[in-house]
């Protein structure tokens, strides 16, 4: 069967797997942003914590994704089979680019601007929220963009621990040696990644302050 015939025959399934996939990615990204951005803001003026936080986030990044999913299964509360475990793993993956870009963005501000802010009598909190954060936004968003694309890809592996999504087709295709099945998972995943990259790129460009 040609891939196109397969796609049109199974379009309802592909669509529902795509939506599942998007749900995994969106939930994981929201959690990663809610952890990564505030944590990045918190470590800006705390060098000891910064080394620890960035170090731990980097370690997660070095674990092969399939292994990370496997490691999490036996862990109580966050582990087991299914979506919850998958989301935990995806969050751990997405954290590093978000955390690092938040930190780099917040610390990469023109020192003259920061000096003026301090000399004008702004408090540390005011400098963080009114100067550093708005000026770092484009860089933070670039981190979120990178993390989103990684997550869309890694989320296909989540099917290995029963989390559903487009990976289901890929794993089945590999098992049955069916190109059509593999493509039914891979093509929508690639399109999702391109679309996310494009949309977040637009947003990033809008937020850039030169």
């Amino acid at each position, binding site marked *: 069967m040609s891939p196109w015939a397969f796609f049109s025959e199974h379009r309802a399934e592909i669509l529902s797997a795509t939506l599942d996939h998007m749900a995994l990615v969106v939930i994981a990204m929201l959690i990663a942003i809610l952890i990564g951005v505030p944590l990045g803001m918190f470590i800006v003026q705390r060098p000891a914590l910064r080394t620890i936080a960035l170090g731990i986030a980097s370690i997660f990044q070095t674990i092969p994704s399939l292994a990370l999913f496997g490691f999490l299964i036996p862990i109580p509360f966050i582990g087991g089979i299914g979506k919850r475990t998958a989301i935990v793993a995806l969050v751990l993956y997405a954290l590093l680019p978000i955390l690092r870009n938040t930190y780099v963005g917040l610390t990469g501000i023109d020192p003259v601007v920061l000096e003026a802010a301090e000399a004008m*009598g702004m408090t540390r909190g005011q400098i963080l929220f009114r100067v550093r954060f708005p000026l770092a936004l484009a860089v933070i968003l670039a981190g979120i963009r990178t993390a989103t694309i990684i997550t869309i890809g890694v989320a296909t592996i989540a099917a290995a621990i029963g989390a559903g999504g487009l990976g289901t087709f890929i794993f089945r295709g590999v098992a049955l040696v069916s190109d059509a099945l593999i493509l039914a998972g891979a093509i929508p995943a690639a399109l999702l990644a391109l679309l996310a990259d494009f949309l977040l790129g637009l947003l990033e460009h809008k937020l850039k302050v030169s």
Partner: protein
Amino acid sequence: MSIEMNTKTPVFSANTIEFRDVSFHINDILARVIISSISLAVPQNETLVLLGRSGSGKTTFLKLINGMLLPSSGQVLVQGRPTSVWDPIHLRRGIGYVIQDAGLFPHFTVAQNVALVPNLERWEPARISARVDEMLQLVGLDPREFSHRRPRELSGGQRQRVGVARALAADPPILLMDEPFGALDPVTRAELQREFSALARRLGKTIVFVTHDLREALLLASRIVLLQSGRIVASAPPQDFLRLDHSEVRAFTASLTPLPGAFA
């Protein structure tokens, strides 16, 4: 440039700023001495110009006044109170600060930049916008044309004008200026120096102005203080300064005269 600044009745002694045997050294292994036992009083309404080469301690001197640095020994008094006792935020809101490259917030419009301290001080919005217009006119920028621009849409000279407007917006009694015209082209610099010297005379502020340009010091100062390696080596009103007998004064005076043979 017809607006008068509201002059506040002084609530402090004659000396707005006073250095009492102040030293400052960096707390690293080398313990480099930046400022070395300086005693100096700046009376109200004086325009004190600190002259010195790069690395002579001029910028540190300014940062000791607004509490961005605290003295390693001795005391810096601002309006009679040591900076170590002042709440630093409160202290800095009453001190305007202008630096080289202006340090404008790139994500703010010109109006938002000028409104910074009034906003922090929670003025009424109507009062803020009136004040912003007044300040922009004061520094020679048409509010209708410039209010909504971003700093990147301004020339260097215009940015520096906005920097001055921002520093003056909350009407602070003290103004600190760290080589504010240093990065401008010579023509714009001369223009801003002339305008600022007229402005300074009308404002009734206590101004401490840092420069390495003797010409600028002579134009703006009511008193010139010469710093060398963190020490005061000369102090005189501009009309007497050039006659002082000190090697560093002569070094600066030499910078005024063209090189022999030039333009021959």
